[in-house]
């Protein structure tokens, strides 16, 4: 695992971009293609893929890049979704979110609700990270999983917000100047969000901070010997990743106009890890590729039979056992 590089540092960064240009062109054309095929449903699938790509990329920041195997990332995605939905619920039911010590009203304004949601996810990631990062290895895996389950059960216990069944939102958030209810507009918003986040990850990986994080993954003892205390760097990395996951959650709630505890279940966390593993751990384009592959395969098998997990589970196992570097390995991001 430690042999797989995150972004290679140094001049020849061409392979990452070699595939990026035609890919972005295709992605830009997706709404037109769906329109031409008369299949607006496909645009919804495409938006879903992009949002999962964002969620998986955020997990890849801690998992592939930082070497911290977190098994509870869906919780941070779900918190983002829930904050958006809960704020919208309070607006439509005309009940303030908080009356003491200050009055907070519900809102569907994206300019307020989205930062609040991302902030909540970042805060949750900070707290979970602060406790979990005191441990390493197996303990870290188990603790992130346990905290995610805690947040899951908490969401289930929220009877006011639908409990186990989740809740429907009346509509998408309102963003001044953009009509988010329009599916094409929403798709482009998601696409821009994903590309910006990938660009951010690209820069982060090459920054001093990125070097330190990579160094900690490769050899923690050596980083300590260099006078760098890993904990604050890892916690920062974990918090950034949580915030980005929260953003994915915001978009997910807006796409479906529905949230439920299954958005932050253990199975969802496992799915995100599976996407990364399918795509290629620690590579920039791996998680988005893995997300696309995962969702399309699920959809394709689901069309064939209702018992698709009987085929999908074993297929996942075979890919993981035999295609050791993921899809990116096939698409030519070469390993040094």
């Amino acid at each position: 695992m430690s042999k797989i590089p995150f972004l290679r540092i140094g001049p020849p960064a061409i392979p990452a971009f070699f595939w990026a240009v035609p890919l972005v062109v295709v992605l830009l054309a997706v709404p037109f293609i769906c329109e031409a095929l008369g299949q607006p449903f496909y645009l919804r699938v495409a938006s879903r893929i992009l949002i999962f790509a964002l969620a998986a990329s955020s997990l890849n920041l801690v998992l592939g890049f930082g070497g911290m195997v977190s098994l509870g990332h869906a919780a941070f995605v779900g918190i983002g979704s829930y904050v958006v939905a809960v704020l919208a619920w309070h607006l439509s039911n005309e009940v303030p979110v908080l009356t003491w010590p200050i009055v907070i009203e519900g809102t569907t304004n994206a300019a307020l609700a989205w930062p609040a949601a991302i902030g909540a996810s970042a805060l949750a990631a900070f707290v979970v990270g602060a406790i979990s990062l005191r441990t390493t290895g197996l303990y870290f895996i188990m603790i992130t999983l346990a905290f995610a389950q805690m947040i899951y059960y908490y969401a289930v216990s929220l009877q006011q917000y639908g409990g186990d069944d989740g809740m429907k939102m009346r509509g998408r958030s309102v963003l001044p100047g953009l009509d988010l209810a329009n599916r094409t507009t929403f798709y482009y918003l998601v696409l821009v969000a994903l590309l910006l986040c990938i660009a951010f990850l690209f820069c982060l990986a090459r920054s001093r901070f990125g070097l330190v994080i990579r160094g900690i993954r490769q050899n923690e003892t050596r980083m300590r010997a260099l006078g760098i205390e890993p904990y604050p760097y890892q916690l920062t990395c974990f918090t950034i990743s949580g915030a980005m996951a929260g953003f994915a959650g915001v978009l997910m709630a807006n796409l479906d106009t529905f949230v439920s505890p299954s958005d932050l279940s253990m199975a969802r966390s496992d799915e995100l890890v599976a996407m990364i593993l399918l795509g290629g751990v620690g590579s920039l384009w791996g998680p988005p590729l893995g997300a696309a592959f995962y969702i399309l395969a699920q959809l394709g098998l689901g069309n064939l039979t209702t018992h698709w997990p009987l085929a999908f589970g074993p297929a996942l196992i075979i890919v993981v056992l035999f295609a050791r570097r993921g899809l990116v390995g096939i698409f030519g991001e070469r390993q040094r």
Partner: protein
Amino acid sequence: MIAVLLEQALNGLQLGVTLFLLASGLTLVLGIMRLVNLAHGSLYMVGAYIAFTIQSASGSFSLGLLAAAAATALIGAVLERLLFERLYQRGYLEQVIVSFGAVMFLDELVRVLWGPLPLKAPMPEVFDWSVELLPGLLYPTYRLAIIAVGMVVSILLYLLVTHTRIGMMVRAGASDRSMISALGVNIRDLYTAVFAGGAALAAIAGTMAGPIYSVQIGMGESVLVQSLIAIVIGGIGSIRGAAIAAVLVGVSDTIGRVFLPPGIAQITVYVFMAAVLVCRPRGLFPAHV
């Protein structure tokens, strides 16, 4: 008040021993083979379903229990040879996803074979009565029987691991796999046996839980997470730690649900885990593995 407290403490103890039956197999697999197996909860579920079928067909609870333990042990051994054996040298990530794929497959297989609706396993007739523990407190003997079985199994397991030749080989395999195989021990079969044993214990736990909770798809998930918490609190790889922590988790979860408001109740166990880890990052009884 005392009656309620005693009743809930016993319920907690019963949940605790159920968790221990899962946690003991899991902690050995985790601590000795370094394998993250999320499919352990599915073995618990599969065991409960097999027992349900045998019990309905034959009318005998103990036959169901034995059949479930044997069949699930076999399934465990096959899974180990087919999948997990290839993963000992690989990272945790691959182990997580392979076991996730196995969970998907087993859940769906159960749905195909037994249908999507929860089943209610019948209570064994011998224990279908209650005993008056305190004036006004009737307590089902079935739950007391679960506690007794759990205690006996945990003592036997402890003796097996710490005081027998097989237990010694398992522990030696944890320290140095290649050395123990150079000494002529078939470590491959030994690991398969440990895995199968863990699967059998999970099936016993699932079978005994059947008459109390319903037998349904996904029934293994919450107990899996709770037993993982017990393992983390107790110290990965430590049977003694798993036993004590499983009872602590079972009791605090049950008592919390009765006396704390909903929302807070669900998270007591996790707060407890966090508190333990802040003080002792390697659990209460760190094993030397």
